């Protein structure tokens, strides 16, 4: 105590020379117009089109809106667009887009067809180097038809452009021309940037002239960067912040018991996509792959590693709610006897070892998950050798289809199985490692999914692909990793599917 008292005196004397004052105490508690959020990842830039980084969405998703976006059920709805874009009847590489009237960016620039054209050209410009260029697939340009109508063109017919468009958040052409756009983002959204003190916090202020609904009720949101998860929760418990993102797994149980807080689980998170090379022996035998699935006790694994927080994968790569999820599929139950039975029917060479490529510090508790999987496989009599490369060599391994089995988790940025199909199952996909026979079976189905303009046909075909991926055990199915946030109990918010970070602050309410 004496130490603290001495310190307090010493520090009070020299505490006046601080620079930016981002860390004042006192969160929102009771004040329904102010919210303080604690998050682990700080954005590196606020230019939402530049980079794909963990910290970006939380701050900028409410500054820059999209032409379209998902609603709470995962359906696409028009936001800045007046209606969902329609594909041209004659030429399937052209989409007609009608824009909402009377919207302005917060710097006064009108939101119109010219603005949309600017945005499209910005992200496909190779000099600018936007990470969205890849995600927006083959978007090749935009033509102004009149003030509120613009035609988007794609390189090849792409019926899924609407899903992808959600990632294109619109920035003000005037502001984007300035060099410091990354620190001064401007959009049409319900919030604008207040101040950003790097390393400490950033503030969002409600846009009083917001065109949409609901109007934001929280006047000011302070986003504080607190990298240590325990400190974040301490800050929540001491009342300094109102929302804490990504709590430590071990504390969730305790937080759920706290009546002053509520724990929010966001559906549609990442899915386990540990993939096989189905060309190599014995991975080419479906019984072998199925055996590896039967051998793992997914429930116990989730229970032990994550306090049972995450749902077990139901033999689907797409989580429930995401397009392409097949409700009829059931998870491979834990059945080591069945696994051994299947293995006895497979032609396994003598001295065979599973070369399992894991990862180190890429996903939460990844080593633990992988070691658990390996130990279940050893329990049914297989030899397993696991490596745990760090991010650099791990990414090399992911992109190397020659490797027999590589651990993976995949996100739902497009809210559709098409993402994983494109990555893992499509011929010549960046990570695809299917043998010729398996690939040939999927080829016509994938072509239908990519080419058809009929939504129902696409959905049905995706579910068929999901069924095949399950029956053929192209993946080792584990669990769906959900985003978790902890909020003060008096906060009302219903999260969209996918990530908490893509939060709609204007839909959040604090009950006084």
């Amino acid at each position, binding site marked *: 105590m004496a*130490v*603290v008292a001495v310190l*307090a005196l*010493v*520090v*009070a004397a*020299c*505490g*006046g020379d*601080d*620079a*930016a*004052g*981002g*860390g*004042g*105490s006192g969160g929102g508690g009771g004040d329904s117009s102010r919210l303080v959020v604690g998050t682990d990842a*700080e954005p*590196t*830039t606020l*230019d939402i089109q530049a*980079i*794909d*980084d963990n910290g970006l969405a939380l701050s900028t998703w409410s500054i820059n809106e999209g032409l379209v976006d998902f609603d709470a059920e995962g359906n696409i709805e028009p936001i800045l667009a007046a209606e969902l874009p329609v594909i041209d009847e004659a030429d399937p590489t052209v989409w007609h887009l009608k824009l909402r009237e009377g919207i302005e960016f917060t710097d006064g620039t009108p939101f119109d067809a010219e603005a949309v054209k600017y945005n499209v050209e910005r992200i496909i410009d*190779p*000099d600018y*180097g936007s*990470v969205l*260029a*890849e*995600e927006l697939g083959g978007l090749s340009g935009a033509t102004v038809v009149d003030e509120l109508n613009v035609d988007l063109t794609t390189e090849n017919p792409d019926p899924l452009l609407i899903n992808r468009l959600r990632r294109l958040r619109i920035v003000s052409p005037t502001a984007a021309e300035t060099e410091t756009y*990354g620190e001064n983002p401007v959009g049409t959204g319900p919030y604008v940037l207040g101040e950003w*003190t*790097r*390393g*400490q*916090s950033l503030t969002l202020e409600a846009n009083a002239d917001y065109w949409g609904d609901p109007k934001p009720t929280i006047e000011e949101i302070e986003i*504080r*960067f*607190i*990298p*240590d998860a*325990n*400190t974040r929760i*301490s*800050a929540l*418990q*001491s009342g*300094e912040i109102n929302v804490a993102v990504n709590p430590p797994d071990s504390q969730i149980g305790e937080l759920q018991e706290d009546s002053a807080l509520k724990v929010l689980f966001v559906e549609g998170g990442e899915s386990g996509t540990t993939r096989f090379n189905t060309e190599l022996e014995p991975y080419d035998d479906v019984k072998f792959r199925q055996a590896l699935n039967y051998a793992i006790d997914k429930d116990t694994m989730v229970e032990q590693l994550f306090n049972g927080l995450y749902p077990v994968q139901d033999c689907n790569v797409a989580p429930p709610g995401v397009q392409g999820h097949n409700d009829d599929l059931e998870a491979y139950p834990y059945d080591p006897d069945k696994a051994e039975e299947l293995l006895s029917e497979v032609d396994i060479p003598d001295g065979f070892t599973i070369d399992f490529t894991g990862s180190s510090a890429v996903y939460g508790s990844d080593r633990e998950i992988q070691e658990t999987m390996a130990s279940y496989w050893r329990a049914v009599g297989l030899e397993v050798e696991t490596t745990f490369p760090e*991010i*650099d060599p791990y*990414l*090399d391994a992911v992109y190397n289809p020659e490797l027999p089995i590589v651990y*993976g988790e*995949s996100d739902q*940025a497009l809210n559709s199985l098409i993402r994983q199909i494109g*990555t893992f199952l499509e011929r010549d*996909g*960046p*990570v695809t490692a299917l043998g010729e026979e398996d690939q040939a079976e999927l080829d016509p189905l994938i072509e239908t999914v990519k080419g058809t303009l009929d939504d129902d046909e696409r959905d049905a075909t995706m579910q068929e692909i999901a069924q095949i991926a399950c029956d053929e055990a192209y993946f080792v199915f584990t669990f769906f990793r959900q985003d978790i946030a902890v909020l003060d109990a008096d906060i009302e918010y219903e999260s969209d599917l996918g990530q908490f970070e893509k939060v709609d602050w204007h839909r959040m309410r604090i009950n006084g």
Partner: protein
Amino acid sequence: MIRFIIRRLLFGVLIMLAVTITVFFVTRVLTDPVKVMLPVGSSQEAYDQLEASLGLDAPLGEQFVTFIGDIVRLDFGDSYWQRLPALDLVLERIPATFQLVGAGTVLAIVLFVPLGIIASLKPGGILDRILVTISLFGVSMPQFWLGAMLIFIFSVSLGWLPTSGSGTGQHLVLPSITLALASGGRVAQITRSSMIDQLNRPYVTTLKAKGMPSRRILTHHVLRNALVPIVTLAAYEIAYALAGYAVIVETVFAWPGIGRLAIQAVTQRDIILLQAVVFVVASLVVAVNIIADVLYKAVDPRVKLT
């Protein structure tokens, strides 16, 4: 003295150059920043485009020449991820780092040097034993645990101090105590052993025989002689903390210092930012060491500086 300082400065510049060049080659050969920046599943085309726009597709020798030309003008380039001049980003963090390291070191010295001296006067006595225990505690306790405990006690339970962040004197209290306890433990130990060493020297006995009061012996002779190892350690502690050792404290308390920036740069493989961080830190460490050498001379004029 002036010649000495100039010589050391030149030598320091050489060291910084060597460090910078090493980091340049290591990062470009051993890591692939492009891959880390792209979402998994990106095409080769996207990779090539990004690589070209970052200037990483040129042959290594060519990149090196451009690099040397730039850093001579102190232009480290723009951080890959933040797209702002890297050097500015690092310099932004200096005040906060200085505050933390400064407060932590001052605390460590102000609290633990006197304790070390007092303990050394009666080795084996009660005070000595208490001090040794406290030092051991400070040195062994993991900082993330210590920090979390202090937060739990003083912020969450008692509500006296904020849990994290910076900006006011209150925010500085817990992080600097955490930092001070660790280095303070070492400072106390060195002080104690250095003092004991001096107190056992013949000159002390001589002075006592001549009738000089104990207090005068202590303040005018023993302390000055004992200071050299303490100055060495203090310089080392400061340099070590500036070089990023404070990162644990910075992370636990969300303190916006250089350590956290370095970690961010490494995780994101932002080699431009990393280069700037290494450069700035190396300069600070060199500066601290030069100052320490100058202090030796002030403390003990017999020391020959080479």
